[in-house]
């Protein structure tokens, strides 16, 4: 019996990732999210059919890690750029990968309107409640009381406004068919996130409408805590502002348990 026949490969490096070391900090959620996206594309055999739009944010260099076609968008404009791409290639999988500042502050208009047009696009939304790339300033999603370099003493509702739940806001639109929020900080949630990403890709391929997967993601560096505590903070604190689970699902898919 040959080795190929005797051993089935059940785990390996995804083809949808390049074999490059990333610049992400230890404990950062971005690397996990990259891996999940890549595994989903591999398993759905979509790598060669995919065009991705990374954000301006810590994941701006995602094209160095993802092994498929990608184009940079100006900060916040990923979903407008993706709209243009999708209209030229309606048969390709188009995805955006965006941080909270990119998607829910400077790009709010582009986000809401692409979603509301029901663009057949999948968005991976990395919510780390902070501006990672620029060094820890307040994000639209920074939680009340959370410290950021521009919220000395913690985010104050009166002074800094409220954390925005953009996923809930998007769910209201008829163009949006599926929104789910998962975390990247427990094995169970990571598995859940992978299913959600696959489902989002499937919505697009089935021409149902816009879908988004929000991933609560640790940023130990700018939260100024250890990776372990950062994971804990997501699981115990962040989920209070951003409860996990399906926010909207009108796909009609019967999910296998």
């Amino acid at each position, binding site marked *: 019996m040959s080795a190929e026949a005797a051993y089935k490969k059940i785990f390996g490096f995804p083809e949808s990732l390049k074999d490059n070391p990333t610049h992400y900090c230890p404990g950062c959620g971005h690397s996990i999210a990259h891996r999940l996206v890549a595994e989903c594309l591999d398993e759905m055999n979509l*790598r*060669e*059919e*995919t*065009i991705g*739009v990374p954000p301006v944010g810590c994941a*701006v*260099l995602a*094209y*160095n890690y*993802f*092994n*498929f*076609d*990608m*184009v*940079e*968008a*100006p900060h916040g*404009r990923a979903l*407008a*750029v*993706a*709209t*243009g*791409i*999708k*209209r*030229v*290639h309606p048969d*390709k999988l188009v995805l955006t990968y965006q941080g909270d500042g990119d998607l829910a502050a400077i790009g709010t*208009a*582009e986000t*809401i*309107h692409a979603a509301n*047009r029901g663009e057949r696009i999948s968005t991976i939304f990395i919510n780390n409640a902070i501006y990672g790339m620029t060094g820890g300033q307040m994000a639209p999603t920074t939680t009340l009381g959370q410290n950021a370099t521009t919220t000395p003493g913690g985010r104050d509702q009166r002074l800094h406004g409220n954390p925005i739940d953009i996923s809930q806001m998007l769910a209201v639109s008829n163009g949006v068919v599926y929104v789910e929020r998962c975390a990247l900080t427990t094995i169970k949630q990571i598995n859940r996130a992978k299913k959600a990403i696959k489902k989002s890709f499937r919505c697009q391929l089935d021409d149902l409408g816009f879908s988004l997967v929000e991933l609560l993601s640790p940023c130990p560096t700018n939260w100024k805590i250890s990776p372990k505590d950062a994971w804990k903070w997501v699981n115990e604190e962040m989920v209070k502002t951003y409860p996990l689970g399906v926010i909207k699902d009108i796909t009609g898919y019967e999910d296998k348990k």
Partner: protein
Amino acid sequence: MPSEKMLMNGSHVVAEAAVRAGCRYYFGYPITPQNELPEYLSARMPEIGGTFIQGESEIASINMVLGASVAGGRAMTSSSSPGVSLKQEGISYMAGMELPGVIINMMRGGPGLGNIAPSAADYFQATRGGGHGDYRTPVLAPGGSQELADLTFVAFDIADKYRTPVMLLGDGLMGQVMEPVVFPDFINLEDLPKKDWILDGCKGREPRALFSLLLGQDGQLYKHNLHLQEKYDQITANELRWETKTQDEDEMIIVAYGTAARIAESAIEELRAEGLNVGLFRPITLWPYPMAALRELASKVSKVAVFELSMGQMVEDVVLSVGDRAEIHFYGLPGGIIPTPADVADFLRSASRGDGKVGRRIDV
């Protein structure tokens, strides 16, 4: 085959010309005075299997152009001055990533909301970059409806050939006026040179990435900007366009573009009857500016008059071209008023006498 002669509104002319030039992706946000253009395309694009999207803003629209362009389509957006200000970020990224695309600006009065009357006060914005960074945008300035059609074709070709955004700079009057026009034939999209840099999924090849962020320690950005500059030098060498209407007796030439040039032409006729001979120099590419042609012409006359629908923007390029080879006189009108040929004739008489009564002498 070219079309029959048709009588059309200038905004419709650009829209139809774009379709015939192979544009299949239009994205724009309404603003007066160019709304007829998106309105026309909202009906026309579906007829030819193209895409029309009314974007949620000019920012979104230019970024949709960016996306459609990187995906390989001929894409366009249109707007007027305040909206074009919002597009500058996207234009800068497109320049950096070397993405073709056509931007129409039917200029109106400014600054701020200004007014909706014709104006030509966005010359600086159009020719000096507009957005951030070390880039140039080829700018085409049509002189009337026929050129609106012809230069729309040229704009798409330059954009693709050099992988650059290109701006067509008209004004509110041009966008509204009805004139007869003959359209060039539809181009065949299959005949366009294949683009080997687009994103269409990496089947059978290595994945591609397009980006403007160049952090490489080996002078990546430095080299890229040198490369862009080489390209701009080529455009300057190959794409200069202008029109002259001169005769040997001319004692003066007037430099004007777009609507201002047409007003100037009427003034010139009026003055010939009086025995004052003035030639016309009309730049058609505003960047690159036809400096050498203007310089040569200026050395044959004693005076160069400049007329603009702004308080003096293109005149800076005239000064750069002419230097002290001739006296330079300037007459400009701020937005909101459409000058008559009689106003311009007064300016030219005054410049000829050198009495400074209309307009002003530019000290070089």
